């Protein structure tokens, strides 16, 4: 294998299976050292699995991994780290109660016994050297996501990293934040670190990477090829592959991030500026609510047949907004009206009866009970709108559920199977079938497409569009600006629990991005 000695990483025929699912299939690839390599693909294409195999977190069923010409024993994080491989996780792997210094220390070497000041001095120097503006004594849970990511990168650079893998690092960042990250990455490259970036936006790939490789359905379909030799259209074709459902040009651009799309969906029928709003929030302020800042003076109106998008860096109050609308966070002042009716003091049950539907952030925790059957999951909303003491007929509920799931094109074996046995896309369809019924008036969709592949994402978008045509009001919370700009009729940006800006199409990504970080927009 003398021709691969310049390769820092060399995968040979790597196959990973999870039960019956093949996550990676015969992936053979090698990456040259000293460059920035992008690995792209849609959700479920096997990108994260690929990153974890290299980092030694997943033991491949077949195949081998060589790092700097050395064979890696299967599934050993320690050996991978010793060889200089570090992985920055998509959702950061830092214990929230740790201080920054402790988070550096626990995976590092040296200093088995320490005092707190010693520890903080040592790691403050490390942070300063990397130009990361974080105090070593701060707790991880008190840091905004962008700083958490910087800390995670700093943690990865504690040892002498030769190969740094970043798994979807831009997913949580504002456009400015992403630009800063890219500068840092270029800086690391000039310091001799090889970088593998897992991405799913073509725009970003072309902006930063030297080479690009494309994964689709667990297979390597292209690469690594030099980015100079490939264009956005070709890449988006490779990522999507032969799709069963032909995609609209704008949707396609939004799905692959191949270009900043301009909104062209405006002017849906039945949208009437004079119609009374479905949601009318007037200067709502909330109590602090677990994670994220409280709402401060948030006013927001949604008219029938309108999709309003909420953009913003994660952790800026989007969660609190959804929880306040769902009566799960305490509203301290201001009023909320639903379909012309005051619901400020109404509990969620009452609001649901009034037509509120929620597709919550965490599909597998807040949306479904994975260990419960499909029909129980599906019937929950209906049953909770009645009395707890009412009789139920399970057989009737089961057949109702069956026809609903069939109407939504859910792929399942029986309604008695556990929700946890469905794929992400099908699980989301179960939630859609429950939350987007005929009586729905206001639909809150929080990150409805996160983690879904392109087909399922397009399905969700289509479902939201159908609801809009039925004159529902829709509030879409997403951290994917391309998604928001593609399907929303109006966009508000949240920053620290406030509305930092409202935008109408055609959207200007630079201005939205600026509002997300609070640079220019005046309040």
């Amino acid at each position, binding site marked *: 294998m003398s021709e691969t000695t310049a390769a820092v990483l060399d995968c040979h025929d790597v196959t990973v299976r999870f039960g019956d699912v093949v996550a990676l299939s015969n992936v053979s690839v090698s990456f040259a050292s000293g460059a920035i390599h992008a690995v792209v693909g849609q959700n479920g294409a096997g990108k994260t699995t690929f990153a974890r195999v290299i980092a030694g977190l997943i033991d491949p069923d077949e195949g081998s991994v060589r790092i700097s010409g050395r064979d890696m024993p299967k599934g050993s994080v320690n050996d991978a780290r010793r060889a200089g491989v570090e992985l920055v996780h998509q959702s950061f792997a830092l214990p929230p109660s740790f201080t920054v210094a402790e988070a550096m220390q626990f995976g590092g070497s040296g200093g088995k016994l320490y005092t707190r000041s010693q520890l903080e001095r040592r790691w403050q120097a490390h942070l300063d050297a990397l130009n990361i503006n974080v105090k070593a004594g701060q707790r991880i849970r008190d840091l905004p996501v962008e700083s958490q990511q910087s800390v995670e990168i700093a943690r990865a650079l504690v040892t002498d990293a030769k190969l740094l893998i970043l798994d979807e690092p831009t997913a949580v960042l504002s456009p400015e934040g992403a630009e800063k990250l890219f500068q840092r990455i270029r800086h690391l490259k000039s310091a001799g670190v090889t970088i593998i970036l897992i991405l799913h936006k073509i725009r970003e790939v072309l902006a930063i990477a030297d080479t690009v490789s494309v994964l689709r359905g667990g297979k390597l379909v292209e690469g690594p090829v030099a980015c100079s030799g490939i264009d956005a259209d070709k890449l988006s074709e490779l990522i999507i592959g032969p799709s069963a459902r032909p995609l609209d040009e704008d949707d396609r651009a939004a799905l692959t991030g191949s270009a900043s799309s301009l909104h062209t969906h405006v002017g849906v029928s039945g949208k009437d500026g004079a119609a009374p709003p479905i949601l009318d929030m007037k200067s709502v302020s909330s109590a602090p609510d677990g994670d994220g800042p409280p709402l401060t003076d948030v006013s927001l109106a949604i008219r029938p047949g309108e999709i309003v998008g909420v953009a913003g860096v994660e952790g800026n109050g989007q969660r609190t907004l959804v929880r306040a609308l769902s009566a799960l966070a305490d509203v301290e002042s201001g009023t909320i009206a639903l379909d012309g009716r005051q619901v400020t003091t109404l509990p*969620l*049950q009452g609001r649901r009866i009034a037509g509120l539907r929620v597709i919550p952030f965490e599909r597998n925790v*807040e949306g*479904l009970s994975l260990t419960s059957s499909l029909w*129980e999951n599906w019937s929950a*909303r209906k049953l*909770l709108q009645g009395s*707890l003491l009412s*009789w139920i007929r*399970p057989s009737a509920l089961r057949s109702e559920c069956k026809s609903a799931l069939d109407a939504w094109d859910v792929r399942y074996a029986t309604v008695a199977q556990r929700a946890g046995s469905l794929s992400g896309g099908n699980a989301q369809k179960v939630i859609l079938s429950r939350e987007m019924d005929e009586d729905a008036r206001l639909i809150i969709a929080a990150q409805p497409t996160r983690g879904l592949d392109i087909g399922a994402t397009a399905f969700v978008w289509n479902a939201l569009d159908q609801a809009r045509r039925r004159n529902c009001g829709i509030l879409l919370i997403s951290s994917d600006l391309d998604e928001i700009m593609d399907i929303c009729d109006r966009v508000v940006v949240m920053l620290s629990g406030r509305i930092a800006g409202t935008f109408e199409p055609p959207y200007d990504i630079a201005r939205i991005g600026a509002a997300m970080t609070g640079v220019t927009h005046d309040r």
Partner: protein
Amino acid sequence: MTDSLVSIARALVFIVVALVLCAVIFSIAGFSAELMFSAIIDGAFLRNGALNHALRWGLPLFITAVGVAISFRAGYFNIGAQGQFYVGAICAAFVAEWTSGAPAFVVLPLCFLAGMIGGALWALWPGLLRLRSGADEVITTLMGNFLAGLLLIYVTSGPLKDQSGSGQQASSRPLEAAYRISNSLGVSPLIISIAIVVGLSMWLLVNRTSFGMMSGLAGRNPTMVTWQGAKLWKVGLASFLISGALAGLAGTIELMGPNGRLASGFLPAHGFTAILIALVANLSILGSAVAALFFGGLASAALYLPVIAGLPSSAIDIINAAIALFITARSQLIDRIMRFRSRANG
């Protein structure tokens, strides 16, 4: 369907594993495991009248176990069945004392009511602490067990003390024969019908009402039902109260039936065994009935061992504990075998 087959197979496998562990412990303690097990099987299931004995122990256990299943299903670890059982029995004993002399058709309903209310109240405070403040119910209900044990000692050696000293331990005055609902063998039509009524009504509650389905969902994923608009505290409080009331009912049955009086520290393993029954049955009501017969048999063997076979009765405690250790285990091996078989069949 396969899900429940898997869980039955899993329960059986781990019961066998637990018994192997018991055999090891018996051998270390210097008993022949073979002799021990054959004596236990004999005492539990084979001797004359074994079914009667199993029912005598199993029926009250079943009632308590159904209550445990209801609170566990809703996601609350009410470990306090023992305490609720004691407090129920104590309340019933007081009512029987106060109404002494009145006709049985007055006294009995009052006693049952008092027993159920007492048990429910002893579950109410841990329930409120849990639902209002988030105080962990495992510890509070465990402490409740110790407190109820002390209360029982106090009652049997104080207010209700039997001055004649006919019992070895501190105990209350025996109930008048008219108020007994069974002889000391403990099986009577009344007790059987109470158990059937409890089983049926709770089966309906769990399987045919909105409450039953929602409490099951809430137990598996409270977050999800919160986002559906459920008021968890309602479901939670009802579960605590029902489980407490059923344990109290079982305590009343033990008092007015086989025991006929309160004795300090009587049936110390009742609550723990009931928890086991609920777990072995995977929290199903029907399953609890079957499991209650099995553990009722074991409980009757605990008396049989020292008297007939000359073996220590703590062997039964060890078997129960070993089953508890393993019963919630999940071996992927079993799941895989079952899944493979179901695929082969269909």
